[in-house]
């Protein structure tokens, strides 16, 4: 039995919309990398354009959350969920931006060489995409232990990023890599490293939603 069907429905709708936004941002991230890997200008432009959609999601979700706040005056877990979502959509929006940034890097490439992306960068991308995917799952289930694992994964992303830098530096010294390509590969790696950071931020907001604690500080 529940006495607040309107509130429960509004919260369900809100969660669904955030999950959609996250799916969309993750899809763009994958397609952005694909565009870069295959030097597909058409796909790159599509991904860049799709970023507007992520921004619209952010606005729509913010409106839904604010409406719940003024109409339903949520407390306790409802309040934490709604305010946590208001915070974490900023990180989702940034992930969308970086998907677009990665796609944009494609436009600076000239020809259609294979093996454009170093295996190390691909490995990074794989881990980061997994982090984003888990953050969506953790949010939908308000699963703080899953959120914790995302935070723990971030160190390996940072390590991989360092490895990419060392590798590219070494290749540049040996002149076995085109400097132009090196720059954009590094930037793509950097964007993935940032996306990893945003997945961590999302995980931290999920822990707040679960416990009211953000980075070990009680926010209430």
């Amino acid at each position, binding site marked *: 039995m529940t006495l607040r069907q309107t509130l429960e429905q509004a919260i369900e709708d809100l969660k669904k919309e955030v999950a959609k936004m996250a799916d969309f941002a993750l899809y763009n991230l994958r397609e952005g990398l694909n565009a870069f890997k295959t030097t597909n200008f058409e796909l790159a432009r599509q991904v860049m354009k799709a970023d507007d959609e992520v921004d619209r999601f952010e606005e729509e979700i913010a409106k839904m959350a604010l409406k719940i706040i003024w109409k339903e005056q949520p407390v306790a*877990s409802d309040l934490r969920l709604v305010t946590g979502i208001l915070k974490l959509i900023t990180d989702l929006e940034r992930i969308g931006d970086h998907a677009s940034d990665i796609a944009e890097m494609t436009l600076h490439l000239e020809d259609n060489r294979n093996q454009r992306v170093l295996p190390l960068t691909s490995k990074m991308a794989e881990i980061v995409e997994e982090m984003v995917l888990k953050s969506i799952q953790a949010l939908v289930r308000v699963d703080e232990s899953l959120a914790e694992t995302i935070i723990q994964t971030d160190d390996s992303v940072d390590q991989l990023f360092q490895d990419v830098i060392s590798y590219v530096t070494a290749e540049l010294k040996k002149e076995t890599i085109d400097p132009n390509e090196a720059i954009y590969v590094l930037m793509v790696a950097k964007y993935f490293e940032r996306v990893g950071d945003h997945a961590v931020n999302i995980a931290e907001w999920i822990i707040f939603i679960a416990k*009211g604690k953000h980075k070990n500080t009680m926010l*209430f």
Partner: protein
Amino acid sequence: MTAQNPIVFQIENLNLFYGEKQALKEISIAIYEKEVTALIGPSGCGKSTFLRVLNRMNDLIDSCHITGNVTYHDQDIYQPKTDVNGLRKSVGMVFQKPNPFPMSIQDNLIYGPKCQGIRDRFLLKQIVEQSLKQAALWDEVKDRLKESALALSGGQQQRLCIARTIAMKPEVILMDEPTSALDPVATAKIEDLISSLKQDYTIIIVTHNMQQAARISDKTAFFLMGELIEYGDANQLFSTPENKKTEEYITGRFG
């Protein structure tokens, strides 16, 4: 973290019965000085009963008896030698429905002090002015002190009742749903008043309005079927309640 205020009431293992029926079960709670403590919970959970324990208003109900300890400043108030009138003077009460006496505004205020033997007219005049000012009613009634209290609006009547309680110079003010009969503006005035009275008084308030409890209380106690389910800082209770039943009640999932 701020230091904890001194304890005014310390209640330990309180059980209260109306005849055979147990209305309060093993309640242990401390009430702190110059704080607003809100009591929330569904109808019939024992909030008013608990409030009446604190100034022995339950004595007026024949079938009522209690076990456990209720101390007010370390004095057991249920021991036989307790000065119950003195207790009720220190621990005043404001009710749900404004209940001014059918007399003038100023007579409402000096009735209690007069009963206590205060005769000095200057002093009585001072009590009238001070208590009305503290109850944020002075400006509205200062030119009509001799008019009937019954001519005041509901919100004004309730503030008069608070002034009447203040006129007795209490330390604690108990309020049982003091705004449930008032419109939003009158309610807001009483809420502001409660927040300012906190500087001088310890206030314990029963309310069915969750937002009101969240707005005005420092500590909140959630009662359910005679039991104290959760008690703590209002900000903690309304954001991260520990007990699932508290969570369900304050989020409106059951009632």
